[in-house]
């Protein structure tokens, strides 16, 4: 069986459209297009929902056309439309859902509302093929920090752990802001950290005590510790060793993320780890994950950076897996659900 699925993503600040062909269960990326409102959020230090929603509406049809052009596919070849229906920003989600419902109706094809988090995991199948069952996925970005047990991409995903406060990417943004480094924090801190000493300051590792939830994350205390450190130096009139602070902060984040992931894989008896989300592109997270997974005998899969951040291809891939699994299309009353749990991979 072969099918072409168009995927639409609009849960945060990226308007993404992808086209995926799935043949005998194996998905292949045909083409995609992405429009971002990231620049418009920079001076606010974080994503402003209304700005993101307005940008999605402005970009949507042009992004769909660009994806078709990139893929060299005709709209008449599309067999199904998939769309992120949650989790995400309420107003932003609805632009994608409304557009997807209309495209599906116009082309007379079924519509599948899919989970954004599951989409991040599905993105890896575009690059590395089907996932072994089960797989452990670590999703890290400005919006998510989650450990997921994936038994079936199109059917069964369980949340093993999550952040109790900030997402990892959010911590990067906040630390970058307090160091006066700009937005988004992730790539900036990653670059500066490469020139600093990761052992310069021992920042706290959240939720790593013997009685703490073993697979949950907390980054709020780390952010406050960095702020204290910086402020103490400032009060003493000492210069701020920005590169060292960045490297030490990044070390704390990467240490906790990878240690908890490897531990969860061992405890759950899972042999393959996928890391996805914007922070998966982070240099130190990647290196440390490779070291620790190798030491623990785990297979590590990280999609290329363009497939890690939010995009339409991952939603098309997710839709393709759902179609192949024979799931029912979403009903005509489909809408966005900002708090969609990851266990609901596809909304019937």
């Amino acid at each position, binding site marked *: 069986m072969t099918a072409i699925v168009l995927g639409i993503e609009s849960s945060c600040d990226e308007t993404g459209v992808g086209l995926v062909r799935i043949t005998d269960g194996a998905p292949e990326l045909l083409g995609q297009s992405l429009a971002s409102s990231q620049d418009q959020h920079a*001076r*606010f*230090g974080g994503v*402003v929902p*209304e*700005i993101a*929603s*307005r940008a*999605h*509406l402005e970009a*949507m*049809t042009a992004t*769909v*056309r660009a994806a078709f052009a990139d893929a060299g596919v005709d*709209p008449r070849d599309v067999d199904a439309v998939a769309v992120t229906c949650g989790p995400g920003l*309420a*107003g932003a989600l*609805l*632009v994608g*859902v*409304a*557009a*997807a*419902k*209309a*495209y599906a*109706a*116009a*082309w*007379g094809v079924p519509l599948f509302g899919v989970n954004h988090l599951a989409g991040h995991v599905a993105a890896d199948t575009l690059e590395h093929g089907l996932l072994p069952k089960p797989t452990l996925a670590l999703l890290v970005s400005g919006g998510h920090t989650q450990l997921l047990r994936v038994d079936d991409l199109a059917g069964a995903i369980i949340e093993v752990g999550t952040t109790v406060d900030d997402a990892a990417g959010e911590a990067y943004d906040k630390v970058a*802001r*307090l160091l006066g480094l700009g937005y988004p924090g992730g790539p900036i801190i990653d670059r500066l950290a490469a020139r600093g000493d990761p052992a310069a300051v021992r920042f706290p590792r959240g939720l790593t005590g013997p009685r703490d939830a073993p697979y949950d994350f907390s980054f709020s205390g780390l952010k*406050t510790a960095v*702020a*204290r450190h910086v*402020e*103490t130096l400032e*009060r003493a009139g000492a210069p701020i060793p920005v590169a060292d602070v960045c490297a030490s902060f990044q070390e704390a984040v990467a240490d906790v993320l990878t240690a908890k992931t490897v531990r969860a894989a061992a405890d759950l008896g899972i042999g393959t780890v996928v890391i996805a989300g914007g922070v998966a592109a982070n240099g130190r997270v990647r290196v440390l994950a490779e070291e620790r997974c190798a030491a623990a005998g785990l297979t590590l899969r990280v999609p290329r950076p363009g497939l890690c951040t939010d995009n339409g291809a991952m939603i098309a891939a997710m839709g393709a897996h759902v179609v192949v699994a024979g799931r029912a299309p979403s009903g*005509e*009353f*489909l*809408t*966005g659900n900002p708090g969609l749990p990851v266990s609901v991979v596809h909304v019937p």
Partner: protein
Amino acid sequence: MLVLALDTSTPTVTVGVVTVRRPYALLDTEQGAADTAGPVTVLVEHTVTDPFAHAERLMPLARAALTESGHRLAEVDAVVVGLGPGPFTGLRVGIATAAALGDGLNIGVHGVPSHDALARCIGPLTGDLLVITDARRREVYFSVYRSDGRRLVGPLVARPAAVPDLLAEHAMAPALLAGAGAPLLEGVLDLPVTTPVDPLSRGLVERAGVALVTGAIAGPLTPLYLRRPDATEPGARRSVLGR
């Protein structure tokens, strides 16, 4: 030609299936009041009032309206959509839907100010008309129309209490009030409230008249937000050490 008319600028979702007789019969009525014997026929109009379910309800409503009219989506020649003003999330649902339908069906999509459409549905006017809709956050959107249907002021957004002064500033003394936000002016402006005699789809399609019948390329679908996004730039860093 067969036209699908959509509006999501108020708590009510409106979908109309409308036929327009060619050629050029609308040219005379584009700026003027509705031509009651005119070339626009509303075959079916469906509405549902639920301020938080626009995305959920719009496409099912469109499907139902088309089915009842005996037509299929593939037969639609053009889409007309209300550009607001309206609360942002709901408004965007209508515009995103219209834009995607147009793109998906390869047909034109024409955006029209929603107040203009409503003003055309009131029937013969004896004086100026004030159209009011709910802008949420204790504000209203308003526009003023001359008895021949021409817009004189607006659309603007203001607190209800500020509307009389704004009208005075523009030397406007409307004689009638219409729109879903009319109750919000109670006690502020005592005007007789009138209700539309025509379905909103008629107003939407007539307002888009010239562009529809001439096949003019539709302009950009720019929503009438009338407000900037809520966003504040981060202030100075707060101390974590205290004093």
